[in-house]
């Protein structure tokens, strides 16, 4: 049975929405169950609470529109993640932060800011190709705002003021704060060969 201890499972809520018996109650229950999680997903993935709020709201509007076509071939939460991921991908496309859009060549000043001063360090001994692959893995783990600022600053020579404006950052420190935070995380990740804890894990352990 889909309802035990008064808790209605996702599939039942989806059916209730689709049948039209009480779509608002069904969508409210799903939002109650997953709203904070998807908000956290966007907040961690983007690194800006305001944009995360907007995307989270857009996500559930999209859920209302798309749920009638959902046939339950995956679980609701997996489907929800894929929808949320699409929203994140759209943002990435608008901000030009997709890794596959970046040049292969890593800018020298970026490497200098990431590599330790000690020239005998393991990082210095890596080939350029290995460094590049490691950097891509580390960049993928950054929140979108930090990746956008780092890519804009190093790959496209955009000023921090301009990046603050382009990304409509509400943080008083603007893009500078994101640059510093992003560099710190990248450096730590590079030292760990791309396998440093994700920001989620780092946040939880602090």
């Amino acid at each position, binding site marked *: 049975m889909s309802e035990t201890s008064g808790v209605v499972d996702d599939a039942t809520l989806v059916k209730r929405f689709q049948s039209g018996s009480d779509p608002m109650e069904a969508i409210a229950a799903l939002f109650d169950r997953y*709203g904070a*999680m998807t908000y956290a997903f966007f907040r961690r993935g983007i690194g800006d609470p305001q944009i995360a709020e907007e995307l989270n709201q857009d996500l559930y509007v999209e859920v*209302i*529109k798309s749920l009638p076509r959902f046939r*339950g071939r995956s679980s609701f939460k997996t489907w929800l*993640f*894929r929808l949320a991921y699409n929203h994140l991908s759209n943002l990435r496309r608008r901000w030009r932060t997709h890794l596959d859009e970046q040049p292969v060549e890593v800018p020298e000043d970026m490497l200098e800011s990431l590599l330790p001063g000690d020239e005998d360090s393991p990082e210095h001994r890596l080939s350029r190709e290995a460094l590049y692959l490691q950097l891509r893995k580390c960049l993928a783990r950054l929140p979108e705002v930090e990746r956008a600022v780092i890519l804009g600053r190093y790959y496209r020579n955009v000023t921090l003021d301009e990046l603050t404006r382009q990304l409509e950052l509400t943080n008083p420190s603007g893009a500078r704060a994101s640059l510093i935070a992003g560099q710190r995380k990248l450096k730590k990740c590079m030292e760990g060969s791309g396998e440093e804890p994700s920001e989620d894990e780092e946040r939880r352990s602090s």
Partner: protein
Amino acid sequence: MNIIGGNDNGPGCGFLSSREVDALIEGRLGARRAGLFDAHRDRGCGECLHLHAAAESFREILEHGVLEAEQTAFARIRRSVEVRLGQEVDRLQEGSGRSLFGRPWGVGRGLSADELEQIAAAGQSDLDEPVTDEDDPAEPEQE
């Protein structure tokens, strides 16, 4: 077509099938495919690096819940989103000439072409249900 270098298999570059992407998200991708996917990402596939990072983050939230600061921030905005969702449900119920929920709601008005298309698609019977993986959410928008 996915955004960059992707395909109809869903998120990622197509290395993982749509079903495997679901398995990845749910943490039940088989060991052999998981190993191959690791090696694939190690070769630098941007699509899959993004997908993997997002799936990890989502699973982390599902398994460990949200942080207090996230919960507090969400609680602050929650009501306004609920109001917006209520408006959206009302709008679709009242504005759709074809039933979204299996019953007539009146004459359509004031919806965008995209919304009308969504509603038309939603009104399809199971008989003309496409054989493709329709549970896949729409791919990211193209610019």
